Structure formats: structure tokens, C-alpha cells
């Protein structure tokens, strides 16, 4: 069993604190590292991968520090966010070369296995420069998996992938997690994390804002008050109807329509159409007003 342990880890660049006093353990299974852009996710991943020295605190994999310790790469694989690979190599050459760099006894076989796992064999003899974004991502995963590592770190692995590629990558990662590997990926998109991982770590502005089971955090996220802007043919009548529902937190009549606060995002969305139809009101506009990730994360920190 392989665990990544962070104890009071901070990292700053000059006066800017990128990661602030983070303590966490990442164990086997798939863990999502979630947060808006600039929250410090990449900084954390780079430190875990041994490519950045923590300014303070300790970061270890099974007790061994990752910084200045190339031996750690025998059990750790990294899929960096940047799309730079040796584009003049074919996929197969790239993965085989990585196997050789790991000094594996049978590099060709290891490469074939990794390429099969990522389902890249049909394209393995093409140069990487001809690959799509999703294929590059997969060949990078194949290279990171070639030495059968216990830990796989992925920085924004779904960026730029189309929905089908995304699904495939998610299946791949959850399969690897089920095998007992420690898989950590970063993302700024909630839905990606929702599909994939049971455990999440939410980062906001360099701090750990929430940590634990995804469903619990999701509930916290969905039960927060949501604000909708609604325009109808009869705002006053709709306001009266909404006030009678238990998921309605507050209704405000404004000159530009209704501001509705609801404590249950799902119920409100499901009911609004029913209510307007029953009341014979024409709905002309329905706008969620604070759906930015920042506001979601902001709410999480406040609670």
C-alpha cells in the first residue's frame, strides 16, 4: 500500500503563497484534486512528483521524500499538463524509450502492455506530432504507466479532450484505482471529479477547503443557497406560489423580475416548470446567477 503524505506543506514564490499549510494523505484508489485555476493544484502535484521543493513542511511517499530523489520514479508515474512530448517519435518509440529509461528488463513488452491499456495500439506507429490532443494525453499516460507504478499523478488529464475521450480516460483511471493503485488527478471541473472519484480534495487559494467523500461534499455544494433570476408574465403570482414551497429560501420582487433563493438546486429546477404551467404563467427567462466555480468554492470555505 502506497501513501503520499503531506504534512504542513507550504510553497511560496517570493511574496506569493501558492500553497498554504496543507496536510493530507492520499491513499489507494482514485482521488480528485479539485479547485479553480490558480488554486495551487499544479504546485501541489509538482511537489508530489519531486519537481518542486516545498518551502516548508514535509512531503513523502512511503516515508521517502520526493524532492531530489529520482529513485522515487520507480514507483511513481507523472502525466504532466503540458502537451510537450518528443513529437518526432512514434507513440511506440516514445513509450519504449521511456521503458528503457526505467531500465526495465523487457522494454518492448512493457511498452506494448502500456499501449494496450490505453488503447493506443492502432496509432502506435504514427508520429506523435500527428496525434490529437486526446491521443497525446493517452500516450503520455501509457509512458507514465510503462513501469507499472503504484502511484500515478495526472495534471488536468481531461483538458482539451472530447466527451468520448474523456469517458475512456475516466474508465481507465477508475480501473487503475480499482487495482489498488494510488491515482491522483487535478481538475477544475466539478463534473469530471463527480464521475470518477470517491474521494476528493478541494483546494481554494492555496488552502485545502474540503476533503473527503465526494458525495458528502457534493451534498454540501448542492444544498448551498442558489440564486436564480426569473422573468415571467406574472412575477407576483409566481412569487406567491414559490413562497409556499419548502425549498424556497427567499423571493424578491425587483423591477427586472424575480430573485429567487433556493436551498435545493435540484428540486427548484425540477419544479419551476411545473409550477409555472399549473399557475398558467409564461416563463420567459431563468438564469442561475452565481454558478461560477469560485462561488461554489467560496461557499465551501465559508462552511
Amino acid at each position, binding site marked *: 500500500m502506497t501513501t503520499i503524505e503531506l504534512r504542513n506543506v507550504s510553497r511560496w*514564490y517570493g511574496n*506569493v503563497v*501558492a500553497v498554504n499549510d496543507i496536510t493530507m494523505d492520499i491513499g489507494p484508489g482514485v482521488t480528485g484534486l479539485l479547485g479553480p*485555476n*490558480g488554486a*495551487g493544484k*499544479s*504546485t501541489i*502535484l*509538482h511537489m508530489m*512528483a519531486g*519537481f*518542486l*521543493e516545498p518551502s516548508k513542511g514535509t512531503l513523502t511517499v512511503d516515508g521517502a521524500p520526493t524532492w*531530489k530523489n*529520482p*529513485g522515487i*520514479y*520507480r514507483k*511513481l*508515474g*507523472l502525466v*504532466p499538463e*503540458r502537451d*510537450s*512530448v*518528443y513529437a*518526432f*517519435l512514434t507513440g511506440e518509440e*516514445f513509450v519504449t*524509450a*521511456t521503458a*528503457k*529509461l*526505467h*531500465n526495465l528488463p523487457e522494454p518492448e513488452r512493457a511498452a506494448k502492455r502500456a499501449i494496450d491499456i490505453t488503447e493506443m495500439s492502432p496509432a502506435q506507429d504514427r508520429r506523435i506530432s500527428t496525434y490529437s490532443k486526446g491521443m497525446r494525453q493517452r500516450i*503520455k499516460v501509457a*509512458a*507514465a504507466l510503462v513501469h507499472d507504478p503504484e502511484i500515478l499523478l495526472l495534471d488536468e488529464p481531461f483538458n482539451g479532450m472530447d466527451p468520448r475521450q474523456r469517458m475512456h480516460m475516466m474508465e481507465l483511471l477508475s480501473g487503475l484505482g480499482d487495482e489498488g493503485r494510488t491515482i491522483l488527478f487535478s481538475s477544475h471541473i466539478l463534473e469530471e471529479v463527480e464521475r470518477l472519484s470517491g474521494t476528493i480534495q478541494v483546494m481554494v487559494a492555496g488552502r485545502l477547503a474540503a476533503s473527503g467523500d465526494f458525495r458528502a461534499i457534493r451534498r454540501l455544494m448542492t444544498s448551498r443557497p442558489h440564486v436564480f433570476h426569473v422573468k415571467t408574465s406574472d412575477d407576483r403570482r409566481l412569487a406567491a406560489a414559490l413562497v409556499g414551497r419548502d425549498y424556497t429560501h427567499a423571493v424578491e420582487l425587483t423591477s427586472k423580475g424575480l430573485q429567487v433563493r433556493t436551498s435545493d438546486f435540484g428540486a427548484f429546477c425540477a419544479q419551476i416548470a411545473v409550477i409555472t404551467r399549473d399557475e398558467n404563467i409564461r416563463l420567459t427567462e431563468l438564469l442561475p446567477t452565481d454558478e461560477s466555480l469560485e462561488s461554489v468554492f467560496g461557499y465551501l470555505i465559508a462552511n
Partner: protein
Amino acid sequence: MFKPPVLNLTVAAITVRATLGRRRAFLFAVPALILIALTLILRASRPPGAQWPDNVLGDFGFSVLLPFTALIIGTGVLGAEIDDGSVIHLLATPVRRADVIVTKFAVAVGLTALFAAVPELIAGVLAPNSGKLAWALFVGALVGSVVYSAVFVLASVVTTRAIAYGLLYVAIWEGLLSNLVGGVRILSIAHYSLGVANAIYPDQDLRAGLSLSTSLILAIVITAGGLYLATRRLEAFSLTGDPA
């Protein structure tokens, strides 16, 4: 315990393919072609004054061809990967950092020798009455390839502006100052090369400023020191993410 670094053939193969596959490959063939063309033209036109091979092979060869070829190759073998980020795929493996540096250095030396020292030898053989001079310059250029490569590989690990600083060093320090101020030659790789060449084939017109022993000792110290520092620097290679 000190374990001597060893060449990593996988790293070497990728480096050679990357270096020769890039558009820059044309760039470092240009000075070599100019040197050979110049030699052929001069040989055909037979200008008065017997010392022109010294000027062309010594001056152009050692103050233009050798340093610029070495600069482009030496800063590229590792620097190009650092610039575009692909070096991460190499560094996320247990390969010893000293092995990476020594392999990159060896490839740089080999390619610089191929594109600077060998053309120097060819031009030397083509030039009239220059049998031993050609070999002396060839050996001098080999020494230069080694020292320049170590320095430029180090520069590419230390700074992203390695080419700019390298140009300043070659053009200002070696090209200008070392000819005006004698003491500057102590830290001029071109003068180590000339010192070695001059020891093999003593020639006034080469204008060597350093003795053989001084040249060799400094060449060894700078090469070893450069490789050591480059390794230390690569061991602490950091990915700086988005600090904002």
C-alpha cells in the same frame, strides 16, 4: 560514494534525433559550408601572401565557426527540451542526473566535432601547403568542442537565455576583449584551442596567446567544473506552475 557517470544510449539516441531533426540543423551546417567554400575560392584565386590558411582556418575557424556551432548545438541538446517542457518525460525516470548531463554533453561534443572540427580538417587539407597545420587545427578544434560543449550545456540548464549569453561571451569576451586585453585569454576557450593547435604546429600567424600546459589545465578544469555544476543544477530541476 562517487559513481562515475555513464552514457545512456536511449538519451543519446533521442538527443541526436531531436538535434538533427530541428530546423536549427541547417543553421549549424552554415558556418562549416562557408569555411569550406572560402577555402576553395581562395585556393582557386591564389592570393599573394602565403599565410592566408592561418587567417581563414585560425581566425574564421576558431573565432566564428567553432564557437557558433558549439553554441547552437551545446545550448540545444538539453536546453531545447527544457524550453518546451519535454524534459519532464526524461526526468520523471530514475536515470541519474549525472548520466543525463554527461550523455547530453557527449552528444554535443560529437556533433560539434562533426560540424566544426571535421570541416576545419577538410578545409585545412584543401588549403595549400598546410599538411601538419590542418591536423593541428583539427586537434585544437576538438579540444574547443569539448570545453565549449560543457560550458554551453551548463548555460542551458542555468538560464533560459543561454543563447543570448553565449553570443555575448563569444562575440564580446572572446572576439573583442581577448584580443585587446591579454589577461582575458585565460578565460577564453578559443585561446585554449589555439594554444593546443600551436603546440602541435608552432606558427606565428595563429596568434596563440596561451601555452599548451595552461590551455590544457584550464580546459580540463572548466569542463569538469561545468559538468559538475550542470548536474547539480539538473538535480534541482523545478517545474514552476501558476503562482497567481
